[in-house]
Structures are given as structure tokens and as C-alpha cells.
């Protein structure tokens, strides 16, 4: 005897296509085109921040840096759908979400410039800082959500990571526990097709990353991550589900990493320029601009004003960043523990002596 034990389906969502055409319909929030302008502005700001940061790295003023070029719609769509009370659990390429939520450009630069102060940000104080060890932030989101659930707060944890991160056991274990405990979490995967040099198809035989949700018995879906409207809309739905006690959702946002992996990488070693050029035609900023222009809420003048405003902001931030006084070396020791153990205190003294203080 053979029977069907289970069936599943994964859907794909898009409103705004690569040509900026939204004629297949829009969700309510986006029907007034003006509503999209803040999202557009945030995407442009992120792009300029990234551009400058890469330039700063090249001239030795910043450490290794991971640009989000071409993936700005994911973070902006996610963050704009969240409330301030929700908690963002970012990866290392989610500056667009962090900036939207209130992390300042200076803080962002400070972090990538090599100072822990960048993670002591004024943005939502309850948000988690950048997480470098890939995949390790998924369980945090489940833990954050557990706190919300325990206190019966209508808040949601949103965790972001890349396609590579979906290969880590942490991803699966976190989805699984969130599923069985019905935790208010949204898992957002920025599938930018590359994990450094490892292409999406070498990362997993799964046809979609969204279907990995099926392993945890939770809903999963795929969307065009270059369409900020789709991101906003589907994340909003997932947040609502989570807030209503219906549990977690996995969202796979399909994008493309238009830049090198980081400033330490040279992508020409492992991928063809042609492929990259092809994907430039789908990038999120231009398509939204095309749409806004077609809707007559955006024009060249506004664009120029925005660009110059963004550049000013970034210039000011860069200046502030470069003017930051170094932390005293005591900072290495002072927040290791709430109460400084004798050993640490002794070592602090040694370090001060060694530094000639």
C-alpha cells in the first residue's frame, strides 16, 4: 500500500518587476505611491553609505567591509514592516535594516572601523548587534521570541542571514524549535546567490531555500528581494502571524550580490562579469525609481536633492567617525564582566603599565 502522507507548496511573490512595472496589482499600503518614497530614500542612503564605506576601506580608514549593493530592498522592506518594539537580529550585511531602525551611520562606521562602540548603538537598544559567525544568530531570534512569548508581549524577533547561512545546523535547529514552540519569529534569508565563492547551487540541492521551512513544519515562501513592496508586504503578513500567536515564518528574498563578498574578496576569481551585468538589470533601486517616476511622484530634481542630502549625511558621519577619540585601553577590560574579577583587574593594571600610563 502506498499513500500520500504529506504535500507542500512554496509560493513566490512579486509586485514590482525588474522594469518597474506593477501592473499585476499592489498591496493596499503601496497603492499611494508617496508611501514608497521613504523606502526609496532609505535604499539610496544605504547604497551611498556602502559606496563610501568601500572607498574608506580602500584608503585604510575602515576595516574589511561587506557592501549590501543590490540587496538594499531586503533590509529596508523588513525594517519598515517592523515596529520599534520588535527586535532585529541582523547578520553582517543588513545595514539597510539597521540604519532604518536607528543605528546611526557613525555607529555603523565605528563598528566596521574596528571599535566595539559601534555595537553600543542608540538605535533600538534591545536590537542585537551584527553577528559575524554565520548562522549563530538564528537561535538568538528564537530566544528573543521566547522572552516575548513568556511575557505575553506582542513583539516579534526578526532574524536576517544569507543563503550560505541556510546550510548551518543552527538555521534548522532554530526554525525547528521556533516551530514546535510556535515562537514569534520571522526568518529572513537574503539569497544573494553567493556565499563568498560558493554559488547557490553548490550550497544545497534544494530547489528553493524557502522549502527548508518544511523541515520545521513552518510556512516558507519565496519573493523577489529586489521588490521592496513584496518584501514589505510578505514580512508584514509574517509579522502579523507571529504577533497573533501563529508562529514563525521563513522568507527567502531572492537578490544578487552585485559587489565582491567584502573588500577582502575578488569575485572575478570565481564568477563571470556577464552574470553580474545581467543582474544589474534587476537591481532594486532603479526599478523603484522607474515606478515612482511613472507614478509622477519622483523626478530628476528630487533625485538630485536626495543624492546630495544622502551624501551630506554620509560626509557628516564620516567626519564624526574620523574625529572619534580612541577608546581608552581600559575599555578592553571594563565590560568583560559586570563585576571585575581580580585577575582581570590585575591584567588591566599590567596593560596600563605596558602602555606607559
Amino acid at each position: 500500500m502506498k499513500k500520500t502522507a504529506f504535500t507542500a507548496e512554496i509560493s513566490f511573490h512579486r509586485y514590482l518587476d525588474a522594469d518597474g512595472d506593477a501592473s499585476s496589482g499592489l498591496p493596499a499600503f503601496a497603492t499611494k505611491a508617496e508611501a514608497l518614497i521613504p523606502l526609496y530614500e532609505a535604499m539610496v542612503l544605504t547604497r551611498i553609505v556602502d559606496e563610501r564605506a568601500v572607498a574608506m576601506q580602500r584608503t585604510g580608514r575602515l576595516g574589511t567591509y561587506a557592501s549590501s549593493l543590490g540587496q538594499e530592498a531586503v533590509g529596508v522592506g523588513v525594517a519598515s514592516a517592523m515596529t520599534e518594539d520588535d527586535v532585529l537580529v541582523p547578520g553582517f550585511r543588513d545595514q539597510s535594516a539597521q540604519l532604518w531602525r536607528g543605528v546611526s551611520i557613525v555607529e555603523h562606521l565605528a563598528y566596521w572601523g574596528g571599535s566595539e562602540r559601534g555595537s553600543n548603538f542608540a538605535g533600538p537598544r534591545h536590537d542585537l548587534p551584527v553577528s559575524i559567525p554565520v548562522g549563530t544568530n538564528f537561535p538568538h531570534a528564537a530566544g528573543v521570541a521566547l522572552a516575548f512569548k513568556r511575557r505575553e508581549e506582542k513583539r516579534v524577533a526578526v532574524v536576517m542571514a544569507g543563503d550560505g547561512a541556510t546550510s548551518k545546523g543552527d538555521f534548522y535547529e532554530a526554525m525547528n524549535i521556533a516551530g514546535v514552540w510556535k515562537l514569534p519569529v520571522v526568518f529572513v534569508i537574503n539569497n544573494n546567490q553567493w556565499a563568498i565563492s560558493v554559488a547557490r547551487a553548490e550550497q544545497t540541492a534544494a530547489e528553493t531555500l524557502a522549502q527548508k521551512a518544511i523541515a520545521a513544519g513552518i510556512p516558507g515562501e519565496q519573493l523577489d528581494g529586489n521588490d521592496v513592496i513584496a518584501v514589505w508586504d510578505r514580512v508584514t503578513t509574517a509579522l502579523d502571524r507571529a504577533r497573533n500567536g501563529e508562529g514563525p515564518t521563513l522568507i527567502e528574498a531572492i537578490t544578487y550580490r552585485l559587489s565582491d563578498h567584502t573588500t577582502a574578496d575578488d569575485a572575478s576569481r570565481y564568477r563571470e562579469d556577464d552574470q553580474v551585468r545581467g543582474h544589474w538589470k534587476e537591481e532594486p533601486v532603479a526599478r523603484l525609481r522607474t515606478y515612482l517616476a511613472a507614478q509622477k511622484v519622483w523626478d530628476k530634481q528630487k533625485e538630485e536633492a536626495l543624492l546630495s542630502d544622502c551624501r551630506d549625511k554620509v560626509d557628516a558621519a564620516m567626519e564624526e567617525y574620523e574625529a572619534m577619540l580612541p577608546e581608552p585601553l581600559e575599555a578592553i577590560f571594563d565590560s568583560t564582566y559586570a563585576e571585575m574579577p581580580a585577575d582581570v583587574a590585575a591584567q588591566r593594571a599590567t596593560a596600563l603599565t605596558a602602555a606607559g600610563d
Partner: protein
Amino acid sequence: MPEVTLVEAVRMALSRAMEDDERVVILGEDVGIDGGVFRATDGLIQRFGSSRVLDTPLSEAVIAGVAVGAATQDLRPVAEIQFMGFVYPAIDQIVNHAGRLRTRTRGRLTCPMVLRAPYGGGIHAPEHHSESVEAMLTHVPGIRVVIPSTPAKAYGLLLAAIRNPDPVVFLEPKRLYRTGKEQVEDNGEALPLDKAFIAREGSDLTLIAWGAMMKETLEAAAQLAEEGVDAEVLDLATLKPLDQAAILASVEKTGRAVIVHEAALTGGYGGEIAARIAEHGLLSLIAPVRRVTGYDTVIPLPKLEHHYLPSVDRVLTAAREVMTYA
């Protein structure tokens, strides 16, 4: 005052902490209706409900990671790893997150969590159920590593661990879970998390141990007393941060030190202690610092295990030998 075993004292501390602080939650494999495979959490789910006592799926990495995440948002998770041999998948979260959160956010976020695990051999357990790798954890900045050796210490130290604003790894000597009882008052009083205890005062040599090995060490001290050797016995209790002052004070008095632990010699925590003595107490040393430890081999299965674990005799041999120096 109730007479309790060590595992009962653990349970008493957990109950008390949950009673006192709504933010305390327990999570781990089989901690709920089963009460934990050693019954350390017996009755807690009935008393505090399944929103505070959570059976997890079988996934140690996520147990630790969930605890980290929850701790950042004002819960006080007490996570259980069923046996120390299964702690390895949790180490990533302990090193890369729990121990770092405070300093990497310059105090913005903190990680007040406890990771409990029974450790050690001598209970004729299956493979992978007898490990004591406390040394690996003592190397991790930002955390505390605590190992009680008696019911009273288990109670007071575990309360302290749960109340501590930083992550604490709390390792329980499962060989001693039920071997003795002690009067422990459930008075909510915590013990300090940076102090070694003098388990026996003496003047001729210092025996340093912790956890399950306190048993053999104290027995050896009693035997030595009969031989006219007056051993001081230090129970480290908190391995990290190390109470260096207590060690040095004792060695200054006695001039001789023997360190006892059941973990393998090389890279074991005995090395750290001997190093502290060699660095800061050298001038008071009369004799070489000896370590009586497990061997640099995998801890054997039960049939040969007794040859591996430091015995009273091995402690005595080392003690007598250091006594030959004058």
C-alpha cells in the same frame, strides 16, 4: 533544616530562584515531565508550568543559543545540557556570544544565563557520559565556571549563578548527586562566585581539588592525618575567575601543593593552578607541584574506568612524595 543530597540541593536552588524571580526559566532535554534524567528538575513543571520549564527538541546548539537570545531580553534562562559529553555543540554560543555580548556591546546587552551540566565519571555510564572538560571552558573570557562539591555549595553557588548578571557554566558532579546528604536551609542565601573554600585546614601541604574529586582528596587528607601529615584541602568551587589569592595563601603556609582533577592531564585546569603557583608562589615552594589527574587518553568505558580516575592512593602517593622535600 532538610537533609538533602546534592541533586536535591540543585532542585531546591532552582525552585527558589524560580519562586523569587519570574524571569527565571528552565530549558533542556527532558527537564519537564520527566524531571530531568537525574531528577534535578523534578516537580518544577508541575509547580511553575510549561511556560517556565521547557522541554526542548534534541539540539544542544539551539538550547545554548536560545538561552543567549532570551537572556538579552531580560529572561534568566537556566539551560541544561543532559551530560557534559554533549556540551560541544553548545560551545560555539558560549564562546562566540554568551561570553562576549557584554563587552562587544560595551554593556548595552548582557547575557545572564546559566548552562548546567552533570559532569564526570565513576557512575559506570555508557560511552560519552563521563567527561569532564571544565578546562576548555575556563579558557573562555566573559564567563564563569563553577563546580560544587557538596549539597550546601550546590545550593548556594547555583543561586549565585542564576542571579549573576553574566553567563555561568555550572557543572554538577554527578557521581556525588546522591552519595551523601547534608543539612541545607532553603534560605535563599547565595555563596560568592569568586572564592575558593578551605575544606580542611592544615599546615603541611595543600591539596587542591573541586567537584567529585573532593571526595578522594578529603579521604586522602584524613589518611594523611593518621600518618601525621596535616594537609590543607582547598575546594576551588569557582574555577573561573580563579581565587588565586586563596591558593597562594595556602601554599605560602604549606610550601607544597598537589592538584587533583579527573580530566586529562595535558591542558587540564591543574596546569593553570600550577602555573599560578610557579609564577606567584615560587619562593614559598618547598617541593615540586604535583598533579594527580586523569590520563591523556579517552576516559575508558566502565570496565577500566577505575584505573583512570584519580584514586585516594594516587593522591596519597603524590602527597607522600612531596612530603619528602623539606
